[in-house]
C-alpha cells in the first residue's frame, strides 16, 4: 500500500504495519516482549539469547546499577567491545534512567580515562582499571532479582557518543530519548526485508552508527545480532552465522568485496541480501558491483553523531549517484552559505561540559552540520564537502578537497586519495594530491589522469604535486582519512 511517504513506501504492507515510532527507550522492552519475546535477539557462537532472556538479563544489570549507588541521570561509561555484556550494559543504563556514555574500548587506558573525564563519568563498565573511575561488575552473576525500568520522558538524556570527526578535538554529544529513538525508527526503513533479519555487529557500539543503525534498529525490527568483538573473526563468523544484512562503513564494504574476490561470493555466508553503508561517501562503483554482480542491494546514508546518526538515506545509488539520498522525516533542513543546517527531533542536546562548542554548533536554533551541500529538484541531498576541510588560499579563494578527491578516486587503480597543502623540497606549501594506489598500477598513467583532472579546475585549485604512498592513509576510528590542518 502506497502511503505517500518515501521511506514507508519502500516496505511491504506487512512491514509497514510493524513500524512503531517510540519516543523513549523504555518502550522498546514491552514492544519486544509483546511481539517477538521468543525470537532470537543476540546470536553468539555457542548460544542464542531470546528477547525475553535479553530483557530479563537487562533487568538484572539494572540491579547491578542500583546496588552500586548509580542514580538516575548519572553518566555511566560503557567501555566494552561489541559483546552481549556491552548490549546488556547499554540497555540497562539507558532504561534505568542513567546516561550511557559509549567510550571506544580500543586504545590506551589514558584515552579512556580522558573520555570519562570529558563526559563526567564517575563509574564505568570496563574490563580494565581506569584511574579516577569506579568500575561496575560487567556481569549480573549472583544477582537474584531484576530492577524495573524507569519512567522516562522523551526529553530526558539517554546516551552520549564521542565525536571528534577528523579534527581530533574530543566532544561528547548528548542525545535525548526522542532523538535516539527517532534515529532507531528511521534506521529500520530499507527496500529489502527490514524485519526479522540477521545483523552482524561489526561497527563498534561505541560509534553511534553501531548502536543506532545496527544494534537498536535490529532490536526494534525483531531481528537478531551477532556481536563481533574481534575483526579477525569476520571471515569465519560470516560463513557460519550467515547474516542477511550488514551495516558497514564504505571502506569495510570495499574490503569485504576484496575478500569475496579472494574467497568467492560465499565469503558473505550465502544469505546476505542487503548492505547499509554510512560514515563516509559511498563510491558508486563498489555499490554497482554489489548490486549488479553479486545481487546484494547496497544502500547508503548520511548523518552525524549530533543528528542521532541519520539525516538521509539513498536506496537508489545507481541512478542517483553521489547523492546521500532523501531526508528522513521529523527534521527540517536549510542551507546557509551552502552549509547544511538541521532542526528536528533527531538533533542532540549538547556537548557535555562544553557550552562553548555547543553554542558554536547552533545558529538560531539550527544545528550547523559543518557539511556543505544542496538539494536537487527531486529532493535528493548532495554533499559537496566539509567546512572544516576547506583549504583557504592567501588570495582569499578556498577549495573543497573532497570535490577533487571524488574525481581522483574514480581513476582506475586509485584506492584512496587526499588533497591537502603539503610542503615540497623548497618548503613551499603546495596543493598536493597524495594517492594510495594498487602497487601493480602504472603510476605515470595515474599521474597523467590527475593532471588532466587538475587542468579542468580553476587556476587556484590546480594540483601542483602528485605523490604516491606505499600504504593506506592514517584513518580515524570511523575509518575516515585523518586530515592534516589545511593552511595554505
Amino acid at each position, binding site marked *: 500500500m502506497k502511503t505517500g511517504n518515501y521511506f514507508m513506501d519502500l516496505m511491504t504492507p506487512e512491514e509497514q504495519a510493524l513500524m512503531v515510532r517510540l519516543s523513549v527507550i523504555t518502550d522498546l522492552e514491552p514492544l519486544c516482549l509483546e511481539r517477538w519475546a521468543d525470537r532470537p535477539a543476540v546470536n553468539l557462537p555457542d548460544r542464542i539469547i531470546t528477547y525475553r532472556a535479553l530483557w530479563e538479563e537487562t533487568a538484572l544489570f539494572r540491579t547491578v546499577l542500583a546496588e552500586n549507588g548509580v542514580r538516575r541521570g548519572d553518566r555511566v561509561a560503557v567501555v566494552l567491545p561489541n559483546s552481549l555484556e556491552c548490549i546488556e550494559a547499554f540497555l540497562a543504563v539507558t532504561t534505568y534512567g542513567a546516561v550511557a556514555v559509549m567510550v571506544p574500548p580500543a586504545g590506551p587506558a589514558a584515552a579512556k580515562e580522558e573520555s570519562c573525564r570529558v563526559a563526567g563519568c564517575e563509574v564505568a563498565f570496563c574490563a580494565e582499571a581506569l584511574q579516577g573511575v569506579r568500575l561496575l561488575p560487567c556481569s549480573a552473576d549472583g544477582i537474584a532479582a531484576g530492577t524495573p525500568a524507569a519512567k522516562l520522558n522523551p526529553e530526558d538524556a539517554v546516551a552520549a557518543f564521542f565525536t571528534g570527526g577528523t579534527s581530533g578535538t574530543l566532544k561528547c554529544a548528548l542525545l535525548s530519548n526522542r532523538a535516539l529513538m527517532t534515529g532507531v525508527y528511521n534506521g529500520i526503513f530499507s527496500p529489502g526485508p527490514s524485519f526479522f533479519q540477521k545483523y552482524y555487529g561489526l561497527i563498534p557500539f561505541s560509534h553511534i552508527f553501531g548502536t543506532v543503525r545496527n544494534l537498536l534498529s535490529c532490536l526494534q525490527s525483531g531481528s537478531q545480532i551477532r556481536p563481533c568483538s574481534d575483526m579477525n573473526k569476520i571471515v569465519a563468523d560470516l560463513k557460519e552465522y550467515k547474516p542477511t544484512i550488514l551495516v558497514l562503513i564504505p571502506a569495510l564494504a570495499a574490503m569485504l568485496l576484496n575478500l569475496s574476490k579472494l574467497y568467492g561470493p560465499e565469503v558473505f555466508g550465502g544469505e546476505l541480501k542487503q548492505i547499509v553503508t554510512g560514515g563516509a561517501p559511498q563510491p558508486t562503483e563498489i555499490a554497482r558491483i554489489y548490486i549488479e554482480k553479486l545481487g546484494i542491494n547496497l544502500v547508503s546514508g548520511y548523518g552525524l553523531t549530533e543528528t542521532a546518526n541519520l539525516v538521509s538515506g539513498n536506496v537508489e545509488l545507481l541512478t542517483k549517484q553521489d547523492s546521500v539520498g532523501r531526508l528522513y522525516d521529523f527534521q527540517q533542513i536549510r542551507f546557509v552559505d551552502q552549509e547544511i543546517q538541521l532542526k528536528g527531533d533527531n538533533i542532540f542536546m549538547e556537548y557535555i561540559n562544553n557550552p562553548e562548542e555547543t553554542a558554536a554548533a547552533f545558529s538560531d536554533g539550527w544545528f550547523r552540520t559543518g557539511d556543505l551541500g544542496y538539494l536537487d529538484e527531486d529532493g535528493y541531498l548532495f554533499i559537496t564537502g566539509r567546512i572544516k576541510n576547506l583549504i583557504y588560499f592567501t588570495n582569499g579563494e578556498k577549495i573543497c578537497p573532497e570535490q577533487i578527491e571524488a574525481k581522483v578516486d574514480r581513476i582506475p587503480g586509485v584506492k584512496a586519495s587526499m588533497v591537502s597543502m603539503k610542503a615540497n623540497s*623548497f*618548503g613551499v606549501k*603546495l596543493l598536493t594530491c597524495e594517492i594510495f594506489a594498487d602497487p601493480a598500477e602504472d603510476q605515470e598513467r595515474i599521474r597523467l589522469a590527475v593532471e588532466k583532472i587538475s587542468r579542468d579546475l580553476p587556476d587556484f585549485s590546480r594540483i601542483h604535486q602528485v605523490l604516491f604512498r606505499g600504504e593506506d592513509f592514517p584513518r580515524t576510528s570511523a575509518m575516515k582519512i585523518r586530515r592534516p590542518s589545511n593552511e595554505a
Partner: protein
Amino acid sequence: MKHENVIQTLGEVLKKLKPESDLSMVTDETRLVEDLGMDSLTLLMMALQSEKKFGIRFENMQASSFRTVGDVCRYIEGKL
C-alpha cells in the same frame, strides 16, 4: 650585474612572497608555479617588486608567461 647576483636578488624577492620557503636551492630550472606554488597574484607581486629592486620596468608584461626562475632572470638581464 652578473647572473648569480640577479638570481640571488630575485631569490630575495621570492622569499618575501613565500616566507616559509627555503630558496637556497633555487636554480634557473626551478619552476615558478609547480615548484614554488606561485599563482597569478604572486607572479604579479614578483614582477612589481623586481621592478623596484632592479630599477627596471616590466613592459606589456604577462607575469604568468614566465615558467622558470631562469625565464625571469633572462628578462631582467635584458632590461639592465
